[in-house]
């Protein structure tokens, strides 16, 4: 991209009198004059005034400054950056789906409701659950919804003292945050040296105030929690419920189902395991599944299948309430359904194993140069604790930035919090051996550079559109809009 000519904000391309869109007209006279001036804004907003070609060139050039899965390898741990099939995009943009108003009567949206129902059923089969709601908009929203289900369940039995949620110290940050938003108190349970939950420590925390234990399995270190059935028994015996964070579901496809592991409530990130695009940070979708007995607590509105085979939208008085005004990110749900149909039963059974194979292949190819804090077979992802040789002073941040120079997105860094120099790699099943080999080569080169020319790495990246932004200045004096930028100059 040519930064000299195309590095501007859209506001800086604005010229009074230009327009970039045609607005349909209905020829119905004028009526704004009937509204008292005291209810109208005094000054018009300063929005850009640009023509269509200028807008298109502006945003196209901006896209050139971005890196996506379609650009290259994106091994961002715990984010499952798999390939996003194009047919899914086409199906989500189907005009027979995009024109539907959420308040349309059920009779006019039978196709849409059937899509919702079929996806809900497919996810129930894959999760080993009795029912799913597709309403939550993202993974964290699903966690919040799931915890509300759990509270609604305990409240329905008059067991209102259950206000504690136990979360492993390796958990995603959204787990404790979701618990707090749901009005629950968070208690952390430590991990053992092998990265799995300390079952004895957990046993010590279980009492009649525990609402739930939240786990992801495999956990954020990419390790399968083999004690999960025992943990579930202990939690159930104490009267609590088991919550499954589905962020790491991908490697379990075809292997084991959360419902069969003893989980009562779970969410799935459709934008991870079910290949819907991450969109620069959404829209995602975080369907929530429950075991038999908890279905009624799922949020309103609900889609039901009637005896005559048609579908309806209902409001259930036993539901936890509503977490969305509509049936969720419908366009994302359609993409996930297209993916499930495209892979079919057999393809889904295979995807997890290939993801796990890819992760282990990278791990085994780099273990001599990078510190492997836990030496076990991993699942879809694994964590290095920085370089094996710490004497160079090269950090995980340096390695991540140097990877950008080599044309790769960086892995997740400094998470999980179990290790100081966490570098969490998740390749997914849609990467070829050649791509993995190129990544392995780059990582090996970086380890050698760290020993021979450490400053080269500490100064990285070198080949990116911008280099090493000043985060501290950004936080000290927040400039969060175009007008702030102008004020700053003046």
């Amino acid at each position, binding site marked *: 991209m040519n930064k000299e000519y195309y590095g501007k904000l859209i506001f800086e391309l604005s010229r009074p009198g230009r327009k970039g869109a045609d607005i349909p007209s209905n020829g119905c006279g004028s009526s704004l004059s009937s509204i008292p001036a005291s209810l109208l*804004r005094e000054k018009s907003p300063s929005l850009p005034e640009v023509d269509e070609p200028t807008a298109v060139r502006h945003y196209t050039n901006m896209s050139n400054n971005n890196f996506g899965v*379609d650009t290259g390898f994106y091994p961002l741990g715990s984010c499952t950056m798999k390939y996003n099939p194009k047919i899914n995009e086409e199906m989500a943009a189907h005009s027979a789906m995009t024109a539907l108003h*959420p308040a349309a009567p059920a009779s006019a949206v039978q*196709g849409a409701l059937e899509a919702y129902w079929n996806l809900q059923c497919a996810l129930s089969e894959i999760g080993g659950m009795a029912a799913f709601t597709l309403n939550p908009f993202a993974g964290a929203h699903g966690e*919040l919804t799931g915890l509300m289900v759990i509270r609604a369940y305990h409240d329905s039995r008059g067991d209102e003292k259950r206000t504690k949620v136990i979360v492993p110290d390796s958990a995603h940050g959204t787990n404790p945050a979701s618990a707090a938003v749901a009005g629950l108190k968070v208690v952390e349970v430590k991990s053992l040296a092998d990265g799995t939950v300390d079952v004895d420590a957990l046993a010590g925390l279980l009492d009649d105030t525990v609402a739930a234990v939240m786990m992801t399995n495999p956990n954020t270190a990419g390790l399968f929690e083999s004690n999960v059935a025992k943990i579930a028994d202990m939690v159930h015996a104490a009267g609590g419920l088991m919550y499954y964070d589905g962020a790491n579901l991908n490697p379990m496809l075809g292997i084991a189902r959360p419902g069969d592991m003893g989980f009562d409530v779970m969410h799935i990130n459709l934008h991870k395991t079910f290949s819907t695009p991450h969109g620069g940070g959404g829209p995602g979708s975080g369907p929530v599944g429950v075991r038999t007995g908890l279905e009624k607590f799922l949020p309103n509105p609900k889609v039901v299948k009637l005896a005559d085979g048609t579908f309806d939208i209902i409001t259930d008085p036993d539901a936890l309430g509503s977490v969305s005004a509509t049936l969720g990110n419908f366009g994302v749900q359609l993409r996930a359904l297209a993916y499930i149909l495209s892979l079919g039963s057999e393809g889904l059974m295979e995807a997890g194993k290939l993801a796990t194979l890819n992760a282990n292949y990278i791990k085994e190819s780099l273990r001599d140069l990078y510190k492997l804090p836990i030496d076990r077979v991993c699942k879809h992802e694994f964590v290095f604790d920085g370089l094996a040789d710490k004497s160079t002073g090269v950090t995980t941040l340096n390695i991540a930035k140097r990877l950008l120079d080599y044309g790769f997105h960086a892995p997740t860094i400094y998470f999980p919090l179990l290790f100081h120099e966490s570098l969490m790699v998740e390749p997914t099943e849609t990467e070829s051996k050649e791509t993995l080999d190129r990544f392995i080569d780059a990582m090996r080169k970086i380890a050698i550079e760290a020993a021979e020319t450490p400053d080269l790495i500490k100064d990285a990246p070198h080949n990116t559109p911008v280099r090493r932004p000043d985060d501290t200045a950004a936080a000290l004096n927040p400039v969060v*809009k175009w007008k702030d930028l102008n004020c700053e100059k003046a």
Partner: protein
Amino acid sequence: MSHRYFPHTQADIDAMLERCGVSSTEQLYDDVPQELRLKKKYDLPKALTEKEVRDYFNKLGAKNTQLTCFAGGGFYHRYTPSVIPAILSRSEFLTSYTPYQPEISQGTLQYIFEYQSMMTELTGLDVSNASMYDGATATAEAMMMSIAATRKRDTVLVSSTLNPKVMEVVKTYARYHNVNILAIEAAGGVTSLEDMKGKLEGGKVAGVILPQPNYLGIIEDFNGFSDAIHEAGALMIMNCVASDLAVLKTPAEWGADIAAGDAQSLGMPLSFGGPYLGFLCCTKALIRKMPGRIVGATEDVNGNRTFVLTLQAREQHIRRDKATSNICSNQGLMALHTAVYLSLLGTGGLREVCEISANGAHYLAEKLEATGKMTLIYPDKPYLNEFAMKCDFKVDDLLRVCIENEILAGIKLSDNEILIAVTEMQTREEIDRLIEIVSNTKFPQL
């Protein structure tokens, strides 16, 4: 099995297994106890070819009825310029994630910065975040923000003129977040200032949520509200329809501290309820209580203007259970949708959208009144593109007859009351057709 999404040849798999020191992928799962294993194939259909997938969705699509849409209720059928899907399908945008690596995410970061700039222009407030899920959850987050920003206050007042779907989500969040919600009564179709003042007493109120326009489409006069709210030490939160901010007095002008709402009205396809975008803006004083991502401008080592995620110490990945919110993924791509839409329309274009919609609505309301069968419920109250009418017949009968004519006439409010919206998308002929149906149909009397 081979599938077009899986690059692995058998030779690749064999070589990789060898590197891993195992003889099968199964062996990589030795740590999964047998009793937990799935001992069957998923009970799901066999893989469809791409053509079959297309056929499947065509069939589903044919089961929907395409209707001329006079339904609103917070979501409006708006025109989406062709440029928007073209830009959104740029896979550098579409297939990226949260811009954790700013050096290779300037595209995402810049459009969020532009989006934030545009939303602050519309609301008049100082700060916008990078987006929330939808208008209802954005309003619920605003409710929780007010609790976090005030001390020892556990109550939030909500006008009963707020969209009931938004109200339901706010109430749900409040119930689990241990917040007490009190409804402010409506008088004459608008929020009662007197009732609000009474309920503000006692020092327990953290925030007050007021809709603009309200659920019945009425533009409320909030003169005197912000003074009363601020005197009581509470925050004023406005729930707004984004497009209408082009012409209506802004939340900042009304004295609001927080503005939240849905940005679907900015040209987003209805798509049966999503994806849309929730916007959330606030005053500078509240920036550290703001949930979600915020993008800021700074410089890189070469002095180039650079955009980064900023003030991340508020967020869940840093603060965990002390975070301002649990939100992580938001509606990133829909922020791009909003930025491109507002760039194309500009100040004049968005005003034109509001005017054309309002013109159609006033024309339709007048003509429906002229049939002698329907009357505006609050004839003296100003409105833009949505209005509530009382019918001398059952709303269900009207909706049914209209559906037969491929028209969605509106949203039922009660047995004999209906909420009707007009946008730039309904032609004069379509508007006249609805009038004709009301005029010519002999509805059974109530």
